[in-house]
């Protein structure tokens, strides 16, 4: 069927408008991420100038060595403490935000968050177990806790998935219910272990509250493969996820192989959550609020929602983590507390404003 030239031209103008707005928004989010990154690297017990911060990051990529006039102490603080921490914050924030968006879409439930089907409880159980048993792995000398947390999360999702499966299909409602049941069971186990934690209680409670203290390059390297794999899995089927929002049968009528798509999305999002929880404990609200915020201003199209959520989630977690470690410096607050304290009122504000915020594509 051929379209007339007039029709094409008219459409083109309209399309360019919407696309430009979305591109601009993405660019803005990218700039926000860069700013919060640099800002976070500068802030802390020792203040560091922005040119030093940027210089350290640019240096390895520069073809010619350049004179940075940076003290070795500052260089170590940047390279060994702050940069890995901020990178970890970015990875965790974007993982949680994207996983939240995917779970909300998959379950067609705006209240879903990354922890909804119990991955976090499994990860927590793994982590608490590793702490209490005092397991020391020879893997680079440290890091039994994140490894056990990661394994716990992944085992949980396998368990929930196999419980919910009926033949070749996985009904999302069963998945949700199985997840809630498993999550409750594992949480009880975590509480039980906590009860017997003894002198390690402090350690366990702090881990459960969530935080990025003790971020190292090791942790970053541990989770990056999972985060990347997760991002790839979910972004392949962003468009199919749109169709799934209209209902599973509708999606199949539109040619989506729903079983394959659901499984891939589930695996991807679970990897993201397991990676995030294993390195930072349970950080609430990022996964719930960020996708909603993006949806409110730009609609639910996942082809835009997923990358935008990743960028905003990363920026938000970098910012809140900086707050967490500077409010009562040199001590730090648990990050999970800050995200909830900042996140909840922000969320309520967004809900009140929702009509006005939708500035393109909609507003009915």
């Amino acid at each position, binding site marked *: 069927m051929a379209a007339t030239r007039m029709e094409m031209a008219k459409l083109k103008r309209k399309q360019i408008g919407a696309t430009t707005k979305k591109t601009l928004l993405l660019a803005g989010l990218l700039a926000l991420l860069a700013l919060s990154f640099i800002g976070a690297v500068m802030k802390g017990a020792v203040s560091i100038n922005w040119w030093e911060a940027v210089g350290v990051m640019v240096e390895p990529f520069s073809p010619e060595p350049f004179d940075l006039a940076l003290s070795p102490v500052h260089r170590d603080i940047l390279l060994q403490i702050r940069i890995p921490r901020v990178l970890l914050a970015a990875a965790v924030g974007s993982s949680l935000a994207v996983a939240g968006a995917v779970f909300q*879409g998959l379950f067609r439930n705006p209240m879903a968050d990354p922890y909804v089907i119990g991955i976090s409880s499994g990860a927590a159980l793994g982590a608490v177990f590793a702490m209490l048993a005092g397991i020391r792995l020879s893997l680079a000398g440290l890091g039994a806790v994140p490894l056990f947390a990661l394994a716990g999360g992944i085992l949980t999702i396998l368990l929930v998935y196999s419980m919910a499966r009926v033949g070749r299909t996985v009904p999302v409602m069963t998945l949700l219910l199985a997840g809630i049941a498993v999550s409750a069971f594992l949480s009880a186990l975590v509480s039980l272990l906590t009860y017997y934690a003894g002198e390690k209680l402090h350690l366990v409670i702090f881990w459960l509250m969530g935080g990025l203290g003790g971020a190292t390059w090791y942790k970053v390297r541990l989770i990056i493969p999972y985060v990347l794999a997760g991002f790839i899995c979910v972004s392949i089927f962003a468009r199919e996820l749109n169709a799934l929002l*209209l209902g599973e049968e509708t999606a*199949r009528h539109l040619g989506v192989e729903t079983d394959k798509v659901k499984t891939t999305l589930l695996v991807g999002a679970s990897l993201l959550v397991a990676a995030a929880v294993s390195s930072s404990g349970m950080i609430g609200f990022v996964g719930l609020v960020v996708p909603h915020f993006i949806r409110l201003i730009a609609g639910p199209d996942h082809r835009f929602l997923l990358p935008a959520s990743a960028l905003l989630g990363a920026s938000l977690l970098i910012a809140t983590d900086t707050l967490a470690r500077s409010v009562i410096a040199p001590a730090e607050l648990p990050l999970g507390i800050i995200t909830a304290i900042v996140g909840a009122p922000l969320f309520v504000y967004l809900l009140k404003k929702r009509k006005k915020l939708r500035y393109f594509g909609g507003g009915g």
Partner: protein
Amino acid sequence: MGLKIIVNGLELRYGAYPVLDGVDFTVRRGDLLALLGANGAGKSTLLRCISKILAPSDGQIRLNGREARFIAAREAARLMAVVSQEQAVDFDFTVEEVVRMGRLPYLKRFQKEGEEDEVLARRAMEMTGVSHLAGRTITALSGGEKQRVLMARAVCQEPEALLLDEPTANLDIGYQASLLELAARLNREKGVTVIAAIHDLNLAVQHFDRFMLLAGGRVLAAGRAEEVITAENIRRSYGVPAFVYRHPLYGVLQVSVAKRPPAGEVDCKALRVHVIGGGEEALPALELLHRAGLSLSVSPVSIQDSGCRFAQFHRLPVVEVPPFSAITDVLHQEHLQLIRRAGAVVVPPVPFGEGNLRCLAAVEQALKEDAVVFVLEPAGISERDFSGGRATELLARLLREGARPLPRAADLLEAVAGRSQKL
């Protein structure tokens, strides 16, 4: 364009319970087929088997000659578009975004919709009359608007067949008609095969050319309206007595479900009541008495008038008069016979003219023989007297001679019951 669908020995069981129990039929290219049947007859299940949502337990479905189960989801989505009952959508997609999703089966991975797709979406919205809603969010629309948007998406999908599953279930009568007209238009202009599961038989008859009636997971009847929509078929599939007649304006078949008498409301079943005359004005009285479970007789009625149809449908004793004829002596005697066998006579507010004046004479005769006569709404006689005042005069005489006036028809049952208790 136009999908050809052949279904052979299709069976689908949920556990041991068969929902479809050997369904065979063929849908030709460009057919406009309505799928009828009671709740649970298997209409939706059949459509969901064709659209590959459900995998049949046995039998096969061929789409354009190829077996459906070997057709990939994407390709099937280019052959068939489905509109089912309105579903809740909780996320704020715009109408345009929803319609554009119809292009999904044509796009490669990561491929963006091209200008061609945009134009098709726009045209689909124009055709279904939702262009003005393009930027609105789907959650903000009414049920009728939403259903049109889903229809627009189906059009945008450029299918060879359109499967509609109770598409009009939640719509008002205006939207119902326009949605089915749209389906018929796609069928006519683009040769799209249309299959629609539909509950409303009268709506189906107005918009479709072929019909298939399912009952108990099998095809009970298929073909033109006259072959499928019969009182017998409806009784067998829906389990209700129905009355099939022609629409007064369009001449298409119409179906009315007969009300079933409630058990034991009035204790006067032994009594036979005779009701005078045909015409629609007699129907409320007939219906009232019939539902109370009284045995009735009617006369005289013109062949094919409302009273005659009522009597034939319920198999009541009746005296039939040929149309536009006067009551002959023979018929008059038959009429008197019926009256004499009844315990009460009711004169409903029917119009009187030269043709049926003689039945009032029969009532007068009955009064002389001590019959109990009720005259409904006697005050209105002047407006329905087409005999130059003679009917008014006769009716007044009946009342003087002992017929009881009943100003409200609703009191009839009580009056008749009172009469029965006196016996």
